[in-house]
């Protein structure tokens, strides 16, 4: 191998205890088939999927049951064979605890595959468009947490040529180890996925970024690359520093390129995909199988057997917890995601989705600090650790003042909500909460503005229509009036009419002259 690659650094970041050994002790447990599955229609960024089945329909494993309704949307497939029970609102894993549209199905226990598209081991003969269509059919989304539809992400036409494919195996958030487990167990599948992605986007170089706290994963991937004799794929070990797994942070670490504000990595010639996404792409293309299961880390002091578990999408979280030995006496809070970016679940009766990388059954000590907020002492620690180089204090002041224009001037929407600022804050100010509040408040304002613009347009259209009708009515009346005024004059002038009238009078006189004598004669 050539001399070690230069690793750049990004500003900010935190050294955290990784707590990953808790869940990496055992091999990945295979998925079991629950009796009931709940599949939310919105598991991804973009439009919700459009339902293709109705209650009572039998479905085969892998059958498309809801299709992507828009360009930025993702399909949903039956994770096992069975029968559709209902399409209705069910509680989903969301910080609000609200319900959303879901397809509910019962499994028949047979787990028989439905009709699948052909496997394409010869994918190199397929065009990029065909492969993207296959990825789109398979409902592949970014499994690192962002759940952005992969078919859209790999469509790089019209953008700058991509020279580097970065595979994200950094997995920087404490406790989470599903990508680590995947890299240890299935390095071959990851390489398959990389080959397909490179074929689609035409990147000549591939870098796999992994944090140095995962030596087994690094070894497994390097070994696989060597045995397959892959060229231009390199495992790059990056120091463990949260959040090195952030897309823009990892790109900076590996290539030294900085993705500008408001732009995509493609603008610097890079495409970034998570390791699990690469495996799903390989499954979709090489085997014609859709995304119907994923690896979930179930961990924390509140669980008896922490580990990595395969779970069918739609499996209830409480079932997965039961599989991991159930809650221990330390359970304090069930967190969806990791301790830094995750959110607390109000109920464990919610389905595992494509976004679920971790269920953290946290003890009191592990749960995020909920101490009451104290005044800001302007120590500046938050700005020092911010990996995006924002000014968290400024954003806090403006959010408190509800001055959303100003917050956006400080690039609120560049905030990746990594939680570093809130973690180091000596006053326990929940900074990320403020930013999340501001982001959703701005979205609400935008929605309302759109709605009021629509109402204005419709009101103005109605106004012009009413005026037009009124003008037409007036014009008609005026015409009638003019016609009436003209009429008497016309009777006098018209020689034809006068002639007809004269003729009529003559006829009437004649008739009278003929008829009158007769009755007189009769009498």
């Amino acid at each position: 191998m050539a001399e070690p690659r230069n690793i750049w650094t990004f500003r900010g970041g935190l050294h955290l205890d990784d707590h990953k050994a808790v869940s990496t002790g055992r091999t990945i447990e295979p998925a079991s088939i629950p009796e009931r599955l709940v599949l939310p229609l919105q598991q991804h960024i973009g439009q919700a999927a459009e339902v293709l089945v109705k209650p009572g329909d039998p479905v085969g494993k892998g059958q498309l049951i809801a299709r992507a309704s828009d360009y930025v949307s993702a399909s949903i497939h039956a994770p096992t064979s069975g029968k559709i029970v209902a399409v209705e609102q069910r509680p989903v894993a969301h910080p609000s605890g609200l319900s959303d549209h879901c397809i509910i199905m019962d499994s028949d226990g047979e787990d028989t595959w439905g009709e699948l598209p052909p496997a394409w081991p010869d994918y190199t003969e397929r065009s990029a468009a065909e492969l993207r269509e296959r990825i789109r059919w398979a409902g592949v989304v970014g499994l690192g947490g962002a759940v952005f539809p992969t078919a859209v992400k790999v469509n790089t036409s019209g953008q700058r040529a991509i020279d580097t494919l970065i595979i994200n195996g950094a997995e920087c958030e404490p406790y989470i180890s599903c990508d680590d487990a995947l890299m240890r167990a299935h390095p071959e599948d990851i390489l398959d996925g990389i080959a397909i992605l490179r074929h689609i986007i035409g990147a000549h170089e591939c870098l796999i970024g992994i944090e140095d706290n995962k030596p087994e994963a690094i070894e497994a991937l390097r070994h696989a690359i060597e045995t397959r004799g892959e060229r231009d794929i390199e495992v790059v070990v990056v120091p463990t520093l949260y959040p090195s797994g952030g897309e823009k942070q990892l790109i900076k670490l590996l290539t030294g390129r900085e993705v500008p504000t408001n732009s995509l990595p493609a603008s610097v010639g890079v495409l970034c995909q998570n390791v699990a996404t690469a495996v799903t792409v390989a499954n979709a293309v090489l085997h014609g199988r859709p995304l119907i299961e994923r690896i979930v880390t179930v961990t924390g002091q509140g669980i008896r057997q922490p580990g990595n578990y395969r779970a069918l999408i739609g499996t209830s979280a409480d079932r997965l917890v039961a599989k991991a030995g159930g809650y221990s006496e330390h359970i304090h809070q069930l967190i969806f995601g990791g301790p830094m970016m995750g959110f607390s679940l109000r109920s464990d009766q919610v389905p595992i989705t494509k976004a679920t990388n971790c269920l953290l059954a946290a003890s009191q000590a592990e749960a995020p600090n909920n101490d009451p907020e104290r005044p800001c002492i302007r120590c500046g620690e938050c700005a020092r650790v911010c990996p995006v180089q924002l000014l968290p204090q400024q954003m806090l002041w403006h959010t408190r003042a509800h001055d959303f224009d100003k917050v956006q001037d400080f690039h609120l929407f560049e905030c990746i909500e990594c939680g570093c600022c809130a973690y180091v804050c000596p006053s326990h100010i929940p900074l990320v909460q403020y930013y999340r509040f501001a982001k959703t408040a701005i979205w609400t304002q935008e929605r309302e503005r759109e709605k009021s613009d629509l109402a204005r347009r419709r009101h103005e259209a109605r106004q012009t229509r009413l005026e037009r009708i009124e003008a037409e009515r007036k014009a008609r009346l005026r015409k009638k009036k003019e016609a009436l005024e003209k009429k008497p004059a016309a009777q006098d002038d018209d020689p034809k009419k006068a002639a007809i009238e004269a003729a009529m009078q003559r006829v009437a006189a004649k008739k009278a002259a003929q008829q009158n004598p007769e009755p007189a004669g009769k009498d």
Partner: protein
Amino acid sequence: MIAAIVTIAGLSTVFGLLLGYAAIRFRVEGDPIADQIDALLPQTQCGQCAFAGCRPYAEAIAAGEAEINRCPPGGEATMIALAELLGRDPVPLEDEDAAEKPKAVAYIVEAECIGCTLCIQACPVDAIVGAAKQMHTIIDDECTGCELCLPPCPVECIHMHPIGETIQTWQWPYPKEAAKGATHG
């Protein structure tokens, strides 16, 4: 002395002509302040401000004939935005009870509708579909919740349905409130 007078007179003529030309060339049609005010109003066209819609109210504010606190659907946020735009002091809302109403859309009980078209004529944004002696219905997405269709209905078959919160419209709570309301942790 004469040179100075001629120079000044010449300059003033030139600038006068320039200004006169600019006044014609860059003439602003309409009232830009009224447009800006109109853009801030919620466009429900409900008439609760006692004007015949949002635009007339905006024009009245621009002309200094109306206070900025007469828009209940816009609530305090609109009033503050108007105060900021116009450099006026914020004033409490005229009708505070009306402002606290949750957002709602009209709903026609179709079984009771007699097809009289009165509501269609009352709707300021054409959000009601129907024809004489045919059942009417409301296009949810276009209803502004102005309630103007309620009084004309002879059979009182129109009700207001509050718009529930969905995952797509949900907002993260402001942290202080979250701290108060939190039961866990």
